[in-house]
């Protein structure tokens, strides 16, 4: 029964109004979580004994970096499903994720530079973590450019899917780069196997901000996939019915 309900939402026609309703809810959750996370980050979490107030960049740097990697994997997954089963909504999801993923990657790099300058004395180094994250940005941009360069959208979906799938190998490289190579970037502050190496209020602020980034990403991606559906299904009969575009 559940499987049948899921398939119901695999067509653009039924997913379009659902995505509209979900956007509102996830957007509201994102705002609520961001306000809470920023309050904890700036007014509850203490000053770091080593880094002073500069460490507060962590409250956006780590969530953005996590999202940049996670969104890439989700994008590659949808692209692969679209490639394998020729389901057009899957490919539309991949296309809708790419800009937000690229933005998260840019934010991770930007905040990393602004954090690196006071702490390491440099905006940028070509170490494994930073370089592989930069490659992630190029993969997102390459995915979008390739898709835009091919006129037939279904062919564009398939070609871009190949980049997305091949590029997914970069995500574990980013994640484990601080272990595999000797990098200037510090190791993971949070892992599943040991207790986090930071104060509990700092951790709480970071996790709540991460949730806010999640909710934000879901909201804007659903909003964007609605635009993609409007563009690509513009001649479909269901969109001609009154109220269909709401």
């Amino acid at each position, binding site marked *: 029964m559940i499987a049948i309900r899921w398939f119901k939402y695999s067509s653009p026609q039924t997913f379009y109004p659902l995505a509209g309703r979900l956007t509102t809810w996830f957007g509201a959750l994102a705002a609520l979580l961001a306000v809470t996370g920023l309050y904890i980050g*700036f*007014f*509850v*979490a*203490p*000053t770091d004994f080593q880094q*002073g*107030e*500069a460490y*507060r*960049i962590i409250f*956006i*740097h780590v969530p*953005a970096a996590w999202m940049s990697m996670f969104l890439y994997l989700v994008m590659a997954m949808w692209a692969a499903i679209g490639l394998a089963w020729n389901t057009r909504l899957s490919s539309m999801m991949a296309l809708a994720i790419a*800009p*937000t993923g690229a*933005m998260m990657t*840019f*934010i991770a790099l*930007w*905040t990393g530079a*602004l*954090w690196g*300058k*006071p702490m390491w004395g440099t905006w940028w180094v070509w170490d494994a973590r930073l370089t592989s994250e930069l490659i992630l940005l190029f993969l997102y941009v390459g995915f979008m450019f390739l898709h835009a360069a091919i006129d037939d959208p279904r062919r564009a979906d398939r070609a871009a899917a190949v980049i997305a799938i091949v590029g997914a190998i970069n995500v574990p490289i980013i994640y484990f780069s601080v272990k595999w190579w000797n990098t200037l970037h510090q190791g993971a502050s949070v892992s599943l196997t040991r207790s986090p190496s930071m104060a509990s209020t700092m951790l709480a602020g970071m996790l709540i901000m991460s949730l806010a980034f999640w909710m*934000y990403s879901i909201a*804007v991606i659903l*909003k*964007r996939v*609605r*635009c993609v559906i*409007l*563009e690509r299904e*513009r001649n479909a009969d269901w*969109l001609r019915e009154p109220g269909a*575009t709401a």
Partner: protein
Amino acid sequence: MSWENLGTFIAMGGYGGYVWGSFGVTAACALIEILALGARRRRLLRQRAE
């Protein structure tokens, strides 16, 4: 964390430029993304109406 006044909050212990540069650009990115999506949707709906 209690800040003495608005000035110390903005100064961020001498790291104000780095901290606010990070948070400001992030907020700007989110705002631009939301506004751009709104504009894209309005443009598409207008095209349909024509």
